[in-house]
């Protein structure tokens, strides 16, 4: 891999190719807002190969209209990485990632209201010896908090361009672009003395890194400093292993310090903060002691022992109400459009297999999944809103104690909650969980939360379960709550189990910043929502399309003689035969081969079970009226004349649907998020296995008890 040559500072050495800026900063400092403001819609969102960390690259233009590349690196508090996201930031900055060229210049963004802690990362970045532009964001909020920042002094002390900015209002962007357009940028002349106890080790490591690991001297010094603070520095994916000699030097120093009682990492951190402290005293002027801020007043209610729960409950209720009410109209619209498109194709094309493939396979299959897009969009919108305002961190704070009982932390709460609507946004929201094992556990259990696609199945089963044409509301509600509770307890139970066995790990920490509340920035929320929706649609266009065609093929072939009904065609198709083949396995659960077809077809989306039952029992099922289908199902019999849909079978089937993994979209997303097929395959087996066992127990126990 050819690294770009180190950009020197003379005007003659201005980069000939498109300059590459890396944008770095702490979480919650307005980095995404600045990135969006700089690059607008000229963004490319992908993944860093080998890790599921979002890679965002955008283009902005210099004052002369030259394109400038900006890489938005994941937010971090320190280069001593703790999560895969933070490791990406560190590795890109150090030029360790073969897939991303080392940036020529670094754009550091800091929060003006919280300068000291934000400068810690800047201080580490100055060690890299790259030209840096410092953007001091949220100047307006700092002024409101009674802080006066003498940025000219900061610029003087650090010796690099410092730009005052309010990214939300677009203020300071022109100045920033002017600075970014400069062909020459000074290197910081900020002098920082490594503490005397550690300096010899840094020098020795630097020498070894330069000669043995072929790093440039400045990078070698930064790497040496990092090796002394970053506990994971030696075993990180995506970076080249260090020369054994360097590791040997590191270990011998650590041994020596341990014997002497020197706290090397702590000393390094403390000396950085000391240098920052001097800067801060020179730069920050506080006028008077500020009383409680608006944020403090909001938090007094939102994290209150009693009100806190009410607010959380209120927010969640609002979220679910809007998902189920607002999404209904667009969902029906998509259904209608898919149906209209099918009809149009039916008129436009001659009768035949190709026509069936397009209408039933492609439009029906993909349409059935895309139908969930409105729900997913609303959910992303809410998640974005909660993140943007700062409430997300409070929800995690409140729920942490409960989540810690099963070995997770509060950050797993929102992903699991979102999964009640749909597991896909839930699984994608796990990216905020730092510890990879905790993230994986959350992904593995998220689909156990009863999603909205299970609702039609539950409703049909409840209708079949209760005698009479109208189900009493109380019965319906009690059974529903039972199913949701079953899924929820299942999810927590399995999380507990996985954290103790397969993915054993230390209980996760809960070191999390509670950022001040801010008004949401709708543009950022919308961009985030569109990005995520696009990922979902791309999946629908590839994996889901493929599986839909396979499922269609299974139900359309082999062809029955002309003139038979759909019911007979399905019965003798591959799916029907598979249903027959499946019968011995599912008979102990009370299911026959016809239900088996339903189980297979609902792999497209669980609710497809309802329409499949409509075909199997030759009864048209409408969303709002299941009476004919219910009658047909109640008339269904085993060959020996027993009723097929006894109340016990209905229960068994519902329990099966609570636990079984029957959603190709989820599998596709889990594959993407875990970078391989192992975990989605494992997940499918453990969930479906649990479903089988529990349905078996319920059905057999019920029969033994005489139901």
């Amino acid at each position: 891999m050819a690294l770009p040559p180190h950009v020197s500072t003379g005007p003659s050495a201005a980069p000939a190719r498109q300059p590459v800026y890396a944008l770095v900063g702490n979480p919650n400092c307005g980095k995404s807002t600045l990135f969006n403001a700089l690059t607008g819609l000229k963004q490319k969102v992908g993944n860093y190969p080998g890790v599921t960390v979002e890679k965002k690259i955008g283009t902005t233009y210099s004052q002369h209209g030259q394109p400038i590349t900006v890489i938005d690196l994941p937010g971090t508090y320190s280069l001593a990485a703790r999560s895969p996201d933070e490791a990406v930031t560190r590795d890109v900055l150090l030029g360790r990632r073969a897939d991303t060229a080392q940036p020529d210049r670094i754009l550091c963004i800091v929060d003006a209201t919280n300068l000291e802690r934000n400068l810690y990362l800047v201080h580490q970045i100055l060690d890299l010896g790259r030209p840096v532009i410092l953007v001091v964001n949220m100047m307006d909020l700092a002024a409101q908090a009674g802080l006066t920042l003498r940025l000219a002094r900061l610029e003087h002390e650090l010796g690099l361009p410092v730009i005052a900015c309010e990214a939300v209002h677009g203020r300071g962007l022109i100045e920033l672009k002017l600075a970014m357009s400069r062909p020459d940028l000074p290197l910081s002349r900020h002098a920082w003395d490594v503490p005397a106890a550690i300096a010899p080790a840094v020098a020795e490591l630097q020498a070894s890194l330069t000669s043995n690991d072929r790093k440039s001297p400045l990078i070698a010094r930064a790497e040496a400093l990092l090796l002394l603070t970053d506990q994971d520095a030696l075993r990180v994916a995506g970076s080249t292993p260090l020369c054994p000699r360097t590791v040997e030097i590191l270990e011998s120093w650590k041994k020596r310090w341990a014997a002497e009682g020197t706290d090397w990492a702590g000393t390094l951190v403390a000396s950085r903060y000391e240098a920052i402290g001097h800067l801060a005293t020179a730069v920050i002027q506080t006028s008077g002691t500020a009383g409680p801020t608006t944020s403090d007043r909001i938090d007094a209610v939102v994290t209150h022992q009693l009100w806190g729960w009410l607010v959380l409950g209120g927010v969640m209720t609002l979220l679910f109400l809007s998902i189920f009410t607002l999404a209904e109209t667009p969902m029906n619209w998509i259904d209608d459009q898919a149906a209209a498109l099918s009809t149009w194709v039916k008129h436009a094309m001659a009768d035949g297999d190709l026509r069936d493939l397009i209408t039933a396979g492609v439009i029906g299959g993909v349409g059935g999944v895309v139908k969930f897009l409105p729900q997913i969009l609303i959910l992303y919108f809410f998640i974005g809103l909660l993140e943007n305002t700062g409430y997300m961190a409070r929800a995690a704070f409140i729920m942490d104690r409960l989540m810690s009982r099963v070995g997770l932390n509060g950050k797993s709460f929102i992903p699991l909650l979102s999964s009640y609507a749909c597991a896909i946004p839930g699984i994608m929201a796990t990216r905020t969980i730092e510890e990879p094992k905790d993230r994986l556990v959350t992904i593995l259990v998220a689909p156990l939360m009863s999603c909205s696609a299970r609702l039609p199945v539950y409703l049909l089963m409840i209708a079949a379960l209760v005698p009479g044409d109208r189900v009493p509301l109380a019965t319906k509600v009690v059974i529903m709550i039972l199913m949701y509770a079953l899924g929820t307890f299942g999810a927590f139970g399995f999380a507990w189990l996985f954290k103790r066995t397969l993915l054993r790990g230390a209980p996760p920490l809960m070191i999390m910043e509670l950022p001040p509340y801010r008004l949401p920035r709708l543009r950022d929320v919308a961009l985030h929502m569109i990005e995520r929706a696009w990922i979902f649609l791309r999946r629908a266009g590839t994996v889901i399309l493929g599986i839909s065609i396979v499922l269609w093929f299974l139900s359309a072939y082999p062809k029955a003689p002309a003139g038979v009904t759909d019911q007979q065609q399905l019965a003798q198709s591959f799916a029907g035969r598979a249903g027959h083949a499946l019968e011995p396995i599912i008979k102990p659960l009370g299911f026959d081969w016809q239900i088996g077809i339903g189980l297979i077809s609902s792999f497209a989306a669980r609710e497809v079970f309802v329409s499949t039952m409509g075909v199997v029992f030759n009864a048209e099922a409408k969303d709002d009226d299941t009476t004919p289908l219910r009658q047909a199902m109640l008339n269904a019999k085993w060959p020996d004349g027993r009723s097929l849909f006894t109340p016990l079978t209905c229960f068994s089937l519902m329990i099966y649907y609570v636990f079984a993994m029957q959603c190709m979209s989820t599998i596709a997303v889990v594959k993407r998020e875990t970078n391989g097929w192992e975990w989605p395959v494992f997940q499918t087996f453990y969930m479906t296995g649990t479903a089988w066992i529990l349905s078996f127990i319920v059905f057999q126990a019920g029969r033994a008890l005489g139901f």
Partner: protein
Amino acid sequence: MPAPTISLSTLPIGTTATIREFPKIGAAFLRLREMGLLAGTPVTLVRAAPLGDPLEIKIRGYHLTLRKSEAEHILVEPAA
């Protein structure tokens, strides 16, 4: 005579203290230090979560959460 120290987890809610002793090892403590919790830094215990854990502290002008299990290893000297 050195002032008496107590653990951060036993600091009364709403009071401010100065950090005196900090554990040397452990990833959690390194990160906490990088977040600015150093010996000599003033810290305010803002509140405990509704279920008693984790804790919310204010340090260097911003709010941070940590669990009691970490807080009990951090020794602080309450302001007089």
